[in-house]
């Protein structure tokens, strides 16, 4: 059976109530075409397990798609708070668990290795692993190493029902290649019960085999894959297109107010991804092109190039 599907077919795999995790870090690599389609379908009651995919978290929080957020940090680097995310916690609309990056990444890593728990030193002494009314904030066990008196913290492995990643290119076998810093995508993909990939481009498998070092997630881990150009917009893809900072500013402004944000969501989820791109327009997409030397967008000024 072919792993290749359309974006719509891939989103069909996500059911209400599932736990889900998205690849991405700050303003990069986030499968946001997938997220917009999730929101368009109004799939709710999801448990998001996330490290730094601020965009997925904030959009889904703002769309009311989430029942619970398990996370280590969501902020829009350079633009401040993720306001929808903050709002759903401040209003008590969702359950939540706080981790550090390493603690949560270690939970994914443990699941990927088939281990029952991760052993970390992070969270010792801090309030992250505290309790409220006798209930642990995060499931953990303070543990003394059997090889001495060293204290460590044990955290259960985390295996999301669905992990969705976005890559630079992939093939029909589900091999996914990603350039640049790949955040936690390797760990997430190994941890997921079902791994879904969207990629900027499909290429022939021979291309993949010629550059195996770029393959961050091998096809054996990926159950479904779709070609979705600009699938990370408004986040960027290193060496392909930069984050759309104008769009990010607009988003940050809209997210200050629930009504304005609802209007934003309605706009970006009208029609399918092709419609979304058509509304953005060719020039806007071209403006995100990267300089081939640096791999990110440069602005030309009278005196030279400005990042």
């Amino acid at each position, binding site marked *: 059976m072919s792993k290749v599907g359309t974006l719509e077919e891939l989103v069909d795999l996500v059911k209400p109530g599932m736990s889900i995790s998205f690849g991405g870090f700050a303003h990069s690599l986030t499968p946001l075409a997938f997220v917009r389609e999730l929101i368009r379908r109004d799939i709710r009651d999801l448990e998001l397990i996330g490290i730094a995919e601020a965009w997925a978290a904030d959009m889904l929080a703002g769309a009311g798609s989430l029942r619970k957020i398990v996370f280590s940090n969501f902020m829009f680097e350079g633009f401040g708070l993720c306001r929808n995310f903050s709002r759903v916690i401040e209003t008590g609309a969702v359950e939540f668990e706080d981790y550090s990056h390493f603690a949560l990444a270690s939970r994914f890593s443990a699941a990927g290795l088939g281990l029952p728990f991760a052993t970390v030193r992070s969270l010792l002494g801090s309030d992250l692993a505290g309790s409220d009314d006798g209930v642990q904030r995060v499931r953990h066990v303070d543990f003394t190493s059997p090889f001495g008196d060293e204290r460590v913290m044990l955290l259960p492995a985390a295996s999301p029902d669905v992990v969705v990643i976005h890559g*630079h*290119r992939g093939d029909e076998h589900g091999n996914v*290649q990603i*350039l640049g810093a790949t955040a936690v995508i390797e760990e997430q993909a190994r941890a997921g019960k079902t791994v879904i990939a969207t990629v900027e*481009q*499909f*290429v022939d498998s021979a*291309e993949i085999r010629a*550059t195996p070092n*770029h393959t961050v997630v091998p096809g054996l881990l990926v159950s479904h894959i779709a070609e979705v*150009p600009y699938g990370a917009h408004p986040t960027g893809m290193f*060496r392909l297109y930069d984050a759309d900072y104008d769009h990010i500013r607009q988003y940050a402004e809209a997210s200050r107010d629930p009504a304005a944000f609802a209007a934003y969501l309605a706009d970006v989820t009208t029609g399918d991804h*092709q419609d979304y*791109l*058509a509304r*953005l*327009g*060719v*020039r806007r*997409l*071209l403006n995100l*092109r990267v*300089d*081939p*030397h*640096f791999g990110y967008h*440069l602005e*030309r000024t*009278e005196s*030279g*190039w400005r990042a």
Partner: protein
Amino acid sequence: MTSKVATLSEAIGLIKDGDSVALGGHTLRRHPMAAAAEIVRQRKRDLHLIGWNSGIDFDLLVGAGCARIAETSYVGISGFGLARNFRRAAEAGSIEIREHSEISALDMFRAGASGMAFIASSVLMGTDVPATNPRIATVISPFDGKPYTAVQAAHPDVAIIHAHSADRHGNVQLDALHWPDNDADVFVGWAGKTTIVTVEQLVSDEAIREHPDFTILPRDAVTCVVEAPYGAYPCCCDDRYTYDLDFVGDYYAASADPAGFARYLDEWVFGLADHDAFLQKVGVDRLLAITTKGAL
């Protein structure tokens, strides 16, 4: 170093009515189509078009009434057939055609690029071509007393080529050195008194300096550079994008008669403010469909 970056409108504004204008590219490859459309948009007249293997670029300009002379070895729309606007103008006698073979056409650019007054060889002898073209004459070699064909150097008032990248100083690059027809564009570019280069992308100085051996025209050879993404569309652009044969087919159909072509011009050239508007009308989907799956 002063910046040589210009808008397409500014660059094409350098062309005066009656100028000789050389266009790079060949068959359905890398013709400077965004520039050609802007020439039409600015309603230039009486141009003397010069090329070596011409196609939809010449046909568009001739069909729009911009040209008085067409000088090249071939005008056709590749697999589709004869260039219909060009053919109509030729048969109506509204355009003067100065014939070349491919070698003689390249020789005029090579001579122009390298400062030779002419290049003599055995091309075109015995053909009726020299009679059509004042640039071609017979010379008797003082060394062996034999006749040769002399092709006079071309120094077009304006030369326009489409390339892959350039920095703001005007250093122009192609993605690879050894694609077969690069050198023809190099000669065309060098030969111009004024040389306009449209590029897929303006890039940093560092990007150019990373592969200095890919620079086909140093800044001295270039008057201005213009960023025109998909600037060869609907022609192909090497490893960046392939041609849009559907678009070419529609063009070909529209060019079947003058009225149809006038509608084409209204819809695709005069009706659009600039190249950006053209791309927006073509649409993201269509551009993505022809874009090459890039190598990492």
